């Protein structure tokens, strides 16, 4: 919002029907002059350039451009030598792709992936469709992990007191040290890790404890509250896995099963499958959500309400009372009415409901949710419980701080964690760590903790090392190297085995095999079993068995009400929408990925509700100071529709402080204000305007599409059982100025098309990052994004509908539509964009002279222009990641989604060699389609009625975006589902 929102006026516009039905920001609702100007020029960057010089200046510029334009073609044309192998490795054929099954790590948990390599270089991460947990999907971190492998900021050497050292020097220094530890039974030694789900690392821990019985182990885990809640309900910590397939209603109390996290891929897939199955049965699987701050889960909810974190337990208690025979929850405020509706759905679906809470929910709320599920008969029916994948028995970070204070820690070993950055600010961990005489840090980066340690050891990247990891459901995935290690890194089990003084070898593969060899198993049997697991990427029998749980004890008693300080606000701390906890903050792909809801890049913002903004006189970008418990931080305010009125959300992962690193100086460090005992919420903070303004770079309005007044809406909503909202299939083709397809022959080839299911699209961004990895899309930087030059080929438009305080949220991924009657093609003076006989709208980079006419002709605004040489400045090591099958675009060239033409070409060539046998459905999978955890994107031959995409396009929900323009887009959308009575309803 470029100004403070005038909420009553905005509401009046929305209710009166003057405003748009679907809107991206309050600016759009207000229809301010600035917003109109933005819409009118479509790509603001272009207009600013042209508006500056006058006619004479323009002519001079054009003359210079013409004169110099040809020179850009000059230059060296690639390498002029050939280097064959000396001995060609088996299976590696130069230029041919080769995939390895492995696992991607997410905060210690695993998802199954396939890593595509070419010429021995890992280039792309795909989901492993056979993996029992992730089922072929990926998340943004997995997609970006390939960039992490080539990250020049990765730690490359052992450091001692900040100076380069070597493993040999470390080994030498440790020889006496480990002997001393052993003599003291490990007294005074503390080990700090992240969540340990790796069975091999767990075995290493067991051997470590044998060697040093009195050493202590701590973890820095984000999931403690979740497990503590289960302990309060069942007497022991268990992981809860929802079975959406059996559910009739889902109620989320600050739940996060669709949000970025270790469970996102697996749970999104299960939820979307269940949602589709319910639709096939002619019903809606409704999702009710109450949350203090909107996330992907609440965005996908059919009925969402903002509720401050402090009130969630009250709602759970009311429902629990109702389940025990009490009165149904009710109230005359939005939260109370929501609870009534959610309870009605749950009550009707006893034994087939799911109540879920998320990472940020308090242990008491988790305990209440478990009891509620138990009272409703859901436990064991729609909810299963398994042993937590992470090893138990570690102390917390606060315990470690206490031990340091008591002088009990003489040596601290930090293995793959960064407590100096991510410990709650109240712990003042850096200062505490200084008091430990010997500090050893092993990490992928020489980060804040590394800088405070005496020794820093580089860890190997998961894509270049051996290992194993458990998924949330306990499935054991294997990690295998896809390339020889770039630098001198070792894996955590190797470092631990060395420090434990292991005498039987400390190499990662040896440790891995040792862990998985069964007692008495002979070599042949083990090798066969291990090779099969490596081939598949996981051990087939790895998932943890479901455990029966019984409620013990009594429900937590409500805390004594604390009077809220007047004018105080509640802080909600949340993992960032693209960076999560900031471990991978140096990955530019993640930095430039628009946050799913906020749509800001390269920094975090202070999210405030429209009402709070109106009350405090805040506009987007106003710098505000947040003060709590004597500490403060400053960040730009951002008005977030759907935010609880007095809740302010701070996202983690920013404010990093590692010299020279990419992430340095971006955003604020929310960890500063995090309390120790309630890490996700803090009541009684203050928000102070500083009077300064700094506008964050946002893609919120990028490619803004006009909301059509005649009801041909950009977003369509389908009520289950109601008349179809999709385009009629039997309508006569509208007359067109474009020539009809020139001959019958044109339609004998495969005709590529795409359908995107808006109901199961969760806005997770995996497709955007996958596209970036596959298609060599460079990052452009914050300033360029602020000029409207974000370069992604697929963008996810986020629309709101309804009241600004509690809107419905819709996501719409927009790649190139590959229009059959493509307006862009008419504009190009050099025929650099044109159609082929398979229906692809081609972009020929070597023909393009950069007039940008096509961009201004494109009604969907999906074309992107290289204003500068974005690719040329990449570090050499990062250039190694580029996909050799896709051109790297130069400055002055237009680019856009190609439907992954390189993948189509591969299939086409294979078919051509096979006498033009028809390409089987599913052979060509676009990068976005492959990455999607919910399979929302289908792609294939629309001329083949048997194909998956043809089936999707026959769905009565199928509609064309801006179809009335008669562009005949090949990419179409399936309308999202809406509960009865809420479709098209104005607030």
């Amino acid at each position, binding site marked *: 919002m470029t100004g403070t929102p005038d909420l009553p006026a905005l509401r009046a516009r929305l209710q009166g029907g003057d405003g748009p039905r679907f809107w991206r920001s309050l600016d759009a609702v207000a229809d301010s002059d600035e917003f109109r100007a933005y819409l009118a020029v479509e790509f603001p960057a272009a207009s600013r350039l042209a508006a500056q010089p006058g006619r004479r200046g323009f002519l001079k510029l054009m003359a210079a451009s013409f004169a110099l334009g040809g020179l850009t073609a000059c230059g060296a*044309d*690639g*390498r*002029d*030598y*050939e*280097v*064959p*192998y*000396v*001995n*060609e490795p088996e299976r590696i*054929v*130069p*230029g*041919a792709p080769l995939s390895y099954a492995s696992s991607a790590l997410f905060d210690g948990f695993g998802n199954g992936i396939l890593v595509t390599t070419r010429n021995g270089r890992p280039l792309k991460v795909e989901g492993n469709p056979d993996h029992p947990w992730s089922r072929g999907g990926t998340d943004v971190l997995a997609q970006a992990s390939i960039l992490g492998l080539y990250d020049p900021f990765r730690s490359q050497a052992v450091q001692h007191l900040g100076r380069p050292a070597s493993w040999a020097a470390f080994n030498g220094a440790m020889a006496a040290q480990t002997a001393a530890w052993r003599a003291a039974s490990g007294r005074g030694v503390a080990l700090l890790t992240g969540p340990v789900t790796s069975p091999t690392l767990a075995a290493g821990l067991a051997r470590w404890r044998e060697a040093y019985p009195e050493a202590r182990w701590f973890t820095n885990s984000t999931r403690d509250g979740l497990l503590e809640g289960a302990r309060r309900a069942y007497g022991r910590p268990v992981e809860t896995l929802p079975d959406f397939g059996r559910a009739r209603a889902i109620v989320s109390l600050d739940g996060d099963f669709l949000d970025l996290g270790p469970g996102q891929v697996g749970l999104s897939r299960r939820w979307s499958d269940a949602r589709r199955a319910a639709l096939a049965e002619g019903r809606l699987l409704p999702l009710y959500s109450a949350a203090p701050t909107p996330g992907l889960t609440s965005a996908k909810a059919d009925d969402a309400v903002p509720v401050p974190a402090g009130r969630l337990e009250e709602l759970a208690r009311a429902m629990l009372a109702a389940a025990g025979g009490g009165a149904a929850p009710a109230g005359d405020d939005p939260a109370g009415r929501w609870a009534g509706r959610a309870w009605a759905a749950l009550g009707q679906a006893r034994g087939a409901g799911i109540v879920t809470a998320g990472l940020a929910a308090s242990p008491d709320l988790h305990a209440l949710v478990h009891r509620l599920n138990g009272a409703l008969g859901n436990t064991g029916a729609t909810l299963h419980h398994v042993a937590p994948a992470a090893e138990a028995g570690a102390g917390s970070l606060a315990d470690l701080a206490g031990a340091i204070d008591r002088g009990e820690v003489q040596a601290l070993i930090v293995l793959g964690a960064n407590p100096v950055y991510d410990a709650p600010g109240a712990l003042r961990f850096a200062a505490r760590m200084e008091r430990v005489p010997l500090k050893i840090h092993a990490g992928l980066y020489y980060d804040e903790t590394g800088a405070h340690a005496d020794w820093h050891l580089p860890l190997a990247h998961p894509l270049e090392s051996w290992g194993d990891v458990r998924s949330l459901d306990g499935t054991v995935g294997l990690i295998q190297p896809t390339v020889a290690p770039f630098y001198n890194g070792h894996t955590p089990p190797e470092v631990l085995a060395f420090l434990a003084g292991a005498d039987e070898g400390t190499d990662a593969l040896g440790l891995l095999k040792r862990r998985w060899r069964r007692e008495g198993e002979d070599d042949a049997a083990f090798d066969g079993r291990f090779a099969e697991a490596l081939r598949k990427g996981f051990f087939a029998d790895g998932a943890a068995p479901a455990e029966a749980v019984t409620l013990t004890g009594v429900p937590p008693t409500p805390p004594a009400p604390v009077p809220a300080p007047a004018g105080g606000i509640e802080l909600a701390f949340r993992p960032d929408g693209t960076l999560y906890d900031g471990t991978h903050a140096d990955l530019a792909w993640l930095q430039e990925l628009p946050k799913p809801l906020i749509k800001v890049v390269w920094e975090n913002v202070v999210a405030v509700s429209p009402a709070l903004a109106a009350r405090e006189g805040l506009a987007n970008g106003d710098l505000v100071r947040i003060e709590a418990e004597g500490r403060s931080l400053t960040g730009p305010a951002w008005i977030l529709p759907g935010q609880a009125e007095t809740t302010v959300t701070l996202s983690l992962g920013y404010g990093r402080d590692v010299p020279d690193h990419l992430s340095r100086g971006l955003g604020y460090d929310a960890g500063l204000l995090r309390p120790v005992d309630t890490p996700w919420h803090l009541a009684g903070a203050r928000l102070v305007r500083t009077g300064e303004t700094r506008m964050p770079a946002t893609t919120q309005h990028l490619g803004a599409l006009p909301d059509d007044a005649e009801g041909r809406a950009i977003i369509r909503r389908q009520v289950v059982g109601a008349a179809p909202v999709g385009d009629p299939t039997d309508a006569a083709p509208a007359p067109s100025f474009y020539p009809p397809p020139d001959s019958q*022959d044109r339609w004998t*080839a495969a005709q590529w098309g795409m359908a995107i299911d808006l109901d199961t699209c969760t806005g997770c961004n995996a497709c955007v990052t996958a596209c970036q990895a596959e298609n060599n899309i460079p990052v452009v930087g914050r300033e360029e994004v602020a000029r409207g030059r974000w370069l992604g080929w697929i963008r996810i438009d986020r629309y709101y509908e309804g009241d600004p305080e509690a809107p419905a949220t819709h996501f719409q991924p927009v790649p190139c539509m590959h229009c059959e009657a493509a307006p862009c093609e008419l504009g190009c003076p050099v025929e650099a964009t*044109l159609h*082929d*006989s*398979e229906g*692809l709208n*081609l972009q*020929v*980079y*070597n*023909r393009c002279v950069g007039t940008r006419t096509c961009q201004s002709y494109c009604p969907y605004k999906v074309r992107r222009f290289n204003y500068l040489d974005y690719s040329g400045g990449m570090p050499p090591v990062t250039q190694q990641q580029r996909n050799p*099958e*896709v*051109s*790297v675009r130069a400055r002055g060239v237009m680019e856009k989604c*190609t439907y992954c*033409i*390189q993948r189509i*070409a591969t299939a086409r*060539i294979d078919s*051509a*060699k096979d*006498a*033009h046998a028809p390409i089987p459905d599913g052979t060509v999978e676009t990068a976005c389609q492959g990455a999607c955890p919910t399979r929302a994107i289908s792609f294939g031959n629309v001329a083949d009625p048997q194909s998956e995409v043809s089936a999707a396009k026959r769905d009565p929900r199928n509609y064309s975006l801006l179809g009335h323009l008669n562009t005949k887009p090949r990419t179409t959308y399936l309308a999202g589902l809406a509960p009865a009575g809420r479709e098209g309803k104005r607030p």
Partner: protein
Amino acid sequence: MNGNADDRPSGFGTAQLFSPGADAIYRLVLMTLASCLVALPVLAAGIVRSNYVTGVGIAPSQPLPFSHKHHAGELGIDCRYCHTSVEKEASAGIPPTHTCMTCHSQIWTGSDMLKPVRDSYTEDKPLVWKRLNKLPGYVYFNHSVHVTKGVGCSSCHGDVTSMQMTYRANAFEMQFCLDCHRAPEKNLRPPAEIWNMEWKPPADQASLGPTLAARYHVRGGERLTECGICHR
């Protein structure tokens, strides 16, 4: 310039500014400029098409004087013995040192000429060859689809069995590719002739070509000249 004559005082006292031959020089300069307008582009076009720039017919010095004429011509070793992936992959493949040593560990084991090969093998250091055939980065060529669809090696690479030292036989400019993609039937051969370096279109190619095109399921020129076939 003289400016306007009316501005000057008239009279015989004014010296002659230009010699009688000045007009001739003026015309000569004009004519030279005019001819340059034509000649320079012609010259430039000639230079960029010359073998000097395209490298056609020029055999660069290589780490060792490998002779295709000897190996592929006189000894008759099949192309695919060394270029193993030509039928399967985009790249035909450059043989690893191991391939050379399959024979040269047995014959000519003491030859000075082969010392770089033996050194490469014993020291595990790859041979670094000068690259002959290059395409711009935005062109995607696939060997396998060409050789399986009736385009022989020599159509692009020339008769390498006659090359003592290997040189570039054709400048791979877009025109060269398009000539064939517009009318593929002119260069299609029967499967048995793909590896024949001395193949020339037979007299009945005009009738044979379309038959072969049908047999290979080669799409017509319209399809093969679509930009997306080579550029992506």
